[in-house]
């Protein structure tokens, strides 16, 4: 073994024996470096030791090679722990159990590590590999400390016939939920609409379990409070009380900040989730103190083990490249012979969205991304392409053809700018064609990777928000005003979210800001004689709240979100400044102001029109883009609309005319409204639901019939059906023997193996069917075309929720 430096017992003291610490210990031993591995518990790798019994541990990212003296392969928790224990023995690691490090102090070049028992250890270098699990996140709502709440699950088989609520959407929560579901009723609560944070394997595990009904899921929900025998959730449909025997909260863990800061390590911000910054060699701001593993920003086992190996090499003075170096070299090969580190530095410098990523995250992001080199004039993607990846320009320029009719109208994006971000927000088709304006290099990052970064790295979200705010303000509020004049406005803007029915501002409030509606829509109402009278409906892409700014009066009306709505909240002062400099902006805002004033006065005299808007909003029409509405004073109940729908769609009507509510002779039949943010799309395992160029939401042939969309649709417009057999056609059958005979459809299908059914196989696959607005059919929706009296009309809310349309 190499000698420890003068005055220190050890060359390196490794704190924490998780995957990173173990691997570091093993490598130090292998390199004959004088080392000690300190573990608080009486066994190694406590986090994995506490994994639930028999848990299958994954070895992601698959693409990354393992670099450690210990072995690690995807497998059961017990096998992995066993292999590591053997490895520790085999390598002769100097591990000290029950050694709880209470403080680390640097005196000169020597670190003094005080253990809880009073012992002190000295070392020239310290590797902090303590992970995060010593500091797990707790439920922050009322009742979070009640006995039915627990934060860990050792053996899922201990519980039987209980109702258990699992909170969280990460890997731990998913694994707990799925394992518990074998013997219990399990409800999982996910704050978001998707399981974006989970590993791919866990993702399909939980999606399958939810599909099969083994686990019930509350999406977009969070705990409000815990009672003795139930949890109250805030869901998109309001509060829900879920009675349960047990609550398992798996909310992740935060850095043990107090301890780490006491060691002299600095954190970049006050955010409890933020991690300390480290150099590419994992060295913290305290020279000689290294941080690896989850605390260093990477929670995956394989990555942590690689870091453990590498950190010992760095301490020994060997500047070895990271394990993923060859993969990245290959990825960047199209750009010629480049040094990966320099290139990554250049990426960080050039592309603001990625500049806040630490080296590890950036490397991972690049591993997931594709590098494209385009020649001038080559197409990156076309308008209406269905793709949802995110692009950044690294070298050169790209042109966005913003006009659908005139390809010469081009907005140029330079190095460092990004495009395709709408795919992240809405998952819709591309709204413009993008071509290479010069020879260029662009990075294409998958949607899931970006969503993960947005959720975990604040700077990515901020950079994305800032630009998309600017783009939206320029588009909807201040067309023609250059970006530099909008700096203050954009800088002070904030993105705000409102749930259905939530108030943006109240009548009589003092108004010092306005909202640009980014997604969703709002209603404007005033209180007349104690009753709320709706004056207007304001869809996305419009601003609201300018009246109080212009008139310096209190708010003249109350504005509520019609459904889940996201707005850009703009400072009134900053906007006034923009208006002062730009007379035409002022003029157009004032024109809108006058128009609104006039309209409001008219609407106040017409409360019945307001109540129709109110009714339609209550039916969820506000979030639709194209809604079938039936005028009951014209409908002769001939059901020709249903027949036409069935005739157009293999004999299955996607419309139920008579069902659905009516108000003031306006009838909302059960039929798809093609929502702005389709609920059905939220969780489609084969990604079979898309939005077509004209806005229709449709289900393609890759549907697996899981039924998620059917249950996610709040309006009941999706049905699972076997596609019907070929229809009986009298002339064809009688004259040419074509198709099934009368009443022989079933046998005919069986004998001919139609609709995906194997021959002689009666079981046919069910598919989700819904209105596709007769996509691709000349003349449009068959229901409307076939209405003899003009009672059926398809309309978009922003068009019909106006005074003119409401007679």
């Amino acid at each position, binding site marked *: 073994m190499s000698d420890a430096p003068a005055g220190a017992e050890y060359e390196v003291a490794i704190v924490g024996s998780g995957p990173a610490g173990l691997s570091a210990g093993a490598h130090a031993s292998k390199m004959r470096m004088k080392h000690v591995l300190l573990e608080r518990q009486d066994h190694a790798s406590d986090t994995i030791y506490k994994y639930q019994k028999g848990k299958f541990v994954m070895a992601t990212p698959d693409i990354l090679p393992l670099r450690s003296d210990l072995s690690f392969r995807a497998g059961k928790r017990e096998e992995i722990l066993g292999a590591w224990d053997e490895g520790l023995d085999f390598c002769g690691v100097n591990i000290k159990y029950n050694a709880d490090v209470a403080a680390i102090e640097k005196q000169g070049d020597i670190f003094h590590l005080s253990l809880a028992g009073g012992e002190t250890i000295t070392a020239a270098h310290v590797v902090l590999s303590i992970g995060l699990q010593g500091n797990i996140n707790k439920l922050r709502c009322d009742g979070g400390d009640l006995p039915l709440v627990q934060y860990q699950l050792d053996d899922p088989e201990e519980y039987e016939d209980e109702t258990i609520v699992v909170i969280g959407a990460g890997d731990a929560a998913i694994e707990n939920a799925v394992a518990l579901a074998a013997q219990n009723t399990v409800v999982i609560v996910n704050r978001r609409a998707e399981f974006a944070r989970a590993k791919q394997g866990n993702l399909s595990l939980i999606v399958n379990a939810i599909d099969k009904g083994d686990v019930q899921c509350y999406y977009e929900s969070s705990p409000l409070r815990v009672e003795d025998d139930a949890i109250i959730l805030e869901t998109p449909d309001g509060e829900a009380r879920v009675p349960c025997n047990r609550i398992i909260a798996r909310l992740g863990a935060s850095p043990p900040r107090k301890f780490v800061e006491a060691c002299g390590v600095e954190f970049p911000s006050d955010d409890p989730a933020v991690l300390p910054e480290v150099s590419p060699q994992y060295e913290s701001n305290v020279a000689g103190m290294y941080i690896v593993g989850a605390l260093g920003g990477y929670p995956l086992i394989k990555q942590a083990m690689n870091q453990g190996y590498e950190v010992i090499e760095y301490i020994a003075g060997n500047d070895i490249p990271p394990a993923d170096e060859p993969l990245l070299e290959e990825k960047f090969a199209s750009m010629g012979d480049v040094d990966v580190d320099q290139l990554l530095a250049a990426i960080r410098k050039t592309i603001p969205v990625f500049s806040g990523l630490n080296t590890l995250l950036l490397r991972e992001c690049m591993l997931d991304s594709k590098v494209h080199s385009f020649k001038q004039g080559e197409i990156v993607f076309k308008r209406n392409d269905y793709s949802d990846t995110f692009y950044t320009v690294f070298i050169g320029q790209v042109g966005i053809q913003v006009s659908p009719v005139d390809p010469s109208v081009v907005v140029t994006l330079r190095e460092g700018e990004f495009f395709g971000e709408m795919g992240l927000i809405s998952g819709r088709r591309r709204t413009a064609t993008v071509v290479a304006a010069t020879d260029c290099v662009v990075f294409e990052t998958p949607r899931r990777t970006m969503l993960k970064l947005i959720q975990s790295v604040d700077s990515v979200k901020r950079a994305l928000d800032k630009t998309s705010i600017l783009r939206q303000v320029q588009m909807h509020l201040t067309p023609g005003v250059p970006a530099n004049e909008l700096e203050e406005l954009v800088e002070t803007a904030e993105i705000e979210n409102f749930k259905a029915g939530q108030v943006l501002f109240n009548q009589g409030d003092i108004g010092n800001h306005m909202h640009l509606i980014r997604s969703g829509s709002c209603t404007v109402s005033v209180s007349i004689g104690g009753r709320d009278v709706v004056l207007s409906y304001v869809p996305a892409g419009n601003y609201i709240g300018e009246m109080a700014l212009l008139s310096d009066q209190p708010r003249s009306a109350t504005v509520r979100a019609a459904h889940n709505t996201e707005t850009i909240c703009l400072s009134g002062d900053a906007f006034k400044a923009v208006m002062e400099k730009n007379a035409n902006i002022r003029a157009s805002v004032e024109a809108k102001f006058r128009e609104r004033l006039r309209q409001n006065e008219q609407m106040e005299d017409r409360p019945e029109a307001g109540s129709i808007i109110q009714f339609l909003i209550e039916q969820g029409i506000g979030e639709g883009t194209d809604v079938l509405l039936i005028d009951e004073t014209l409908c002769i109940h001939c059901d020709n609309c249903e027949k036409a729908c069935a005739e157009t769609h293999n004999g299955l009507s996607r419309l139920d005319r008579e069902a659905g509510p009516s108000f003031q002779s306006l009838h909302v039949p059960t039929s798809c409204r093609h929502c702005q943010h389709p609920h059905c799309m939220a969780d489609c395992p084969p990604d079979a639901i898309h939005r077509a160029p004209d806005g229709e939401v449709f289900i393609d042939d890759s549907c697996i019939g899981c039924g998620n969309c059917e249950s996610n649709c709040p309006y009941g417009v999706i049905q699972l059906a076997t596609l019907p057999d070929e229809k009986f056609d009298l002339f064809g059958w009688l004259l040419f023997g074509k198709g099934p005979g009368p009443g022989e459809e079933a046998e005919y299908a069986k004998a001919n193996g139609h609709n995906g059914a194997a021959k002689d196989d009666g079981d046919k696959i069910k598919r989700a069917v819904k209105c596709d607005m007769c996509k691709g059919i000349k003349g449009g929706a*068959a229901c409307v075309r076939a*209405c003899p009296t003009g009672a059926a009309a398809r309309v978009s809310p922003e068009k019909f929720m106006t005074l003119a349309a409401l007679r």
Partner: protein
Amino acid sequence: MHESILIYRNHRYLKWSAALIAVASAVYLFHSPVEKPNGGTWLGYTLGVIAAGIMVWLTWFGVRKRSYKPGTIKLEDWASAHVYLGLTLVVIATLHSGFQFGVNIHTVLYFLMLIVVVSGIMGLYFYLTCPRLIAQNRRGMTTETMLAQIADLDRDLRSQVMSLDDETAQAVSDAVQDTRIGGSLWRQLSGSDPDCPTTLARQKLETSTESTDQETRRQILSRLTKKEDLLTRLRRDIQLRSLLQVWLYVHVPFTLGSMAALFAHIVTVFYYW
């Protein structure tokens, strides 16, 4: 956003029809044939061809209505034009006849056509009035929800009937078992049932002096009254909906009849050229 067939496309088909009538009438007025005006003059033949064309086209509506092929022309275009051209047909055919009527196949065709047009006008009247009445009568409920509510009431009544005296119990049982909705065409069109067992049971219960538990009695009475109200509305619903259908029983057969007569008319005209 919704347009009735009368005002459809800013009265496009009304304007077309009015123009056709105006031109035909003007030519008729200035036309002075050697004999008095009849179907055999050049104008008579022209109007005859136009009228026959319109008749065939109007009849084709029955086929077009059931065709769901893609296309930009909506069924409402056809319906709106059907109404106005159908009315125009009366004028064109009359001018074609030169006001000559007799006991012959030609006049038979003329009157068959009139029956079709008049029944069509009745149908149009029903189409324009009944939907609003149906909506008002339903008060936002569907036929199915009304039937479901009646079924619920029946279930409750059945469970309570035992507490009544025999005679009233029998009446209430009859109300549950023998109440009929709909029935023959006349019953549907009448919109009521003079011997409705539910009404009889309610009357019986109201006049019954037998001492039963007052609370149960009140409940049964309230359920019968509720059921009666639902029945009234359902029968009214059926009545209005049959009005939307019943005129077709005249309109369609007479259309087919007039097609046959049209064929005979043309054949005889050319046969006796």
